[in-house]
C-alpha cells in the first residue's frame, strides 16, 4: 500500500507538477530566512572579542560548509536509491546535487580564505578543515566529470552513483586522516569556530543562516532537477503537452 506512494514519488512527472505548485512559496520562505539571518548577523550581532568584525564571515562560511558536506550525502543517497530501485528521478536528483554541492564547497573555501587573512595573516592555511573541504571539492568534481564523460545516460548515472558511494565511505576516513595529519604538524590546533562556547547573541543568527541555507539548497536542487527532467523526458507526451502554450503562440 505504502509502496504505491513511494513509486509515485519516483515519477518525474509527479515531481515536476508538484514542484511547479510549491516552489514559489518555498523560494519565498528561503529568501526571507536568508535575508533576515544575514542582516541580523552582519548588522545586529555583537562583534567577537578577539577577531573583531571579521568573524561575521562565519554567517556564510559555516552554513556553506554544513551544506557542502550534507549535500554530498544527499547526492550519494540519491545515487544509492537509483541503484537499488532503478529510479530515474533519483539519478536526476543525484546529477543535480553535484554542481550545487561543488559551488557551496567553493563558497566555504573562498570565505574561509578571506576570513583567514585578517585573523591569521594568511589567505591559505593548511588546517584540517580547509584541507578536508578542498578534498570534498575534488570528490564533487570527480562525480561531475565521470557523469559527463559517459555518452549513455544509464551508464553515466550508475557510474556516478558508485563513485559517490565510494566517496561516502572515504569522507570520514579522509577527514580523520587529515585531522590527525594536521595535529601532527601543528601542536596548537586553531579552530575556526567553537560553536558551544559562542555567545547566544552570536549563535542565534548562525542557526537562522543554517536553516536558510538548507532551504536555499532545497530550492536550488528542485530547480536543477526540473531542468534535468525536461532534458531527459523531452520525448514524452506530458512534456509535449507542457509546451503547448508556446506552440500555440507560434501557430
Amino acid at each position: 500500500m505504502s509502496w504505491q506512494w513511494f513509486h509515485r514519488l519516483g515519477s518525474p512527472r509527479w515531481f515536476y507538477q508538484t514542484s511547479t505548485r510549491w516552489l514559489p512559496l518555498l523560494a519565498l520562505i528561503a529568501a526571507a530566512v536568508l535575508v533576515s539571518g544575514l542582516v541580523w548577523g552582519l548588522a545586529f550581532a555583537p562583534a567577537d572579542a578577539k577577531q573583531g568584525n571579521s568573524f561575521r564571515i562565519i554567517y556564510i562560511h559555516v552554513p556553506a560548509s554544513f551544506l557542502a558536506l550534507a549535500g554530498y550525502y544527499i547526492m550519494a543517497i540519491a545515487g544509492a536509491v537509483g541503484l537499488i530501485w532503478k529510479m530515474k528521478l533519483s539519478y536526476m536528483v543525484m546529477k543535480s546535487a553535484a554542481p550545487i554541492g561543488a559551488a557551496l564547497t567553493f563558497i566555504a573555501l573562498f570565505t574561509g580564505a578571506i576570513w583567514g587573512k585578517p585573523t591569521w595573516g594568511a589567505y591559505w592555511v593548511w588546517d584540517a578543515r580547509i584541507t578536508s573541504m578542498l578534498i570534498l571539492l575534488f570528490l564533487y568534481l570527480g562525480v561531475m566529470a565521470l557523469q559527463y564523460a559517459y555518452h549513455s545516460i544509464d551508464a553515466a548515472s550508475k557510474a556516478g552513483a558508485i563513485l559517490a558511494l565510494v566517496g561516502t565511505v572515504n569522507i570520514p576516513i579522509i577527514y580523520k586522516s587529515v585531522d590527525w595529519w594536521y595535529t601532527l604538524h601543528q601542536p596548537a590546533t586553531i579552530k575556526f569556530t567553537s560553536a558551544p562556547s559562542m555567545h547566544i547573541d552570536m549563535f542565534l543568527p548562525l542557526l537562522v543562516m543554517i536553516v536558510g541555507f538548507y532551504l536555499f539548497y532545497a530550492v536550488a536542487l528542485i530547480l536543477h532537477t526540473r531542468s534535468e527532467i525536461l532534458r531527459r523526458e523531452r520525448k514524452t507526451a506530458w512534456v509535449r503537452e507542457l509546451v503547448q502554450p508556446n506552440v500555440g503562440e507560434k501557430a
Partner: protein
Amino acid sequence: MAQSINSGFTPWLKRDLLLAYRRRGEVASPLVFFVMVSTLIPLGLTPESAQLAEIAAGMIWVMALLATLLSVDGLFASDYQDGSLEQLLISPQLLPMPLLGKITAHWLTTGLPLTLVSPLLGLMLSLPAAGYLPMLCSLALGTACLSLTGAVGAALTVSLRKGGLLLSLLVMPMYMPVIIFGSATISYAIDGLNWLPPLAILGALFAASVALCPLAAAGALRITSAN
C-alpha cells in the same frame, strides 16, 4: 568441475604475471619514472644533504604515489581492448576473486619493485638511517592500498577514451589517507618516536581495501563494461 568461492584468483594472477613479463619494458616504466624523478628533486631544490633529509620521507612517498597512478590505468585497459574483460565478466567465477588476482599481479609488478628500489632513493635523498625500515614497510603496505583503490577508479573509467586523467582525479582523494600515514610512519621513525601506530593504521587501511575494493571494482566493471 567444482567451483570454490576462491576460484579464479590464482589463474588470473598467473595470467597477468605472464602478460606483464612479456611486456616487461612497459611494466618497468613506472619504476624508471620513480628513479628519474628523484634526480629532479635535488636539481630543482637543493643538493644540500641536510635539507634533502628533511623532505626525503614525504618526497619518496609522493613519487611512489605518482608512479602508481601512472600504472594503474593499464590494469584493465588491454583486457578491455582485446575482449578478455568481457570473457571475465561472463565467466562463472565470482568476479571479485579474479580481480583480486589481477590487482595482486599489478602490485607484484609495480608496488613491490618500487618498494625494493626505495632504499636506493633513500640514499640519493639523504634519508636518515632510522627511516629505511619504516620506509620499506610503509611502501609495501601502502602501494598495495594504492593498487587496490586504483583498481576501483580504473574499473569506473575503463570504457572511456582518455580515461587516464579522469582516473587520476577520481582516485586522488582516496589516496590521501594512504600517503598521510605512509609518510608519517617514516617521519615518526626519523624523529625517534614509535612508528608502529601509523603503520598499524596503514595496515587497517590495507585490510579494509582488500575486503572492499574488489567488490566495488567488480560492481563498477559490470556497469561500465556494458556501455
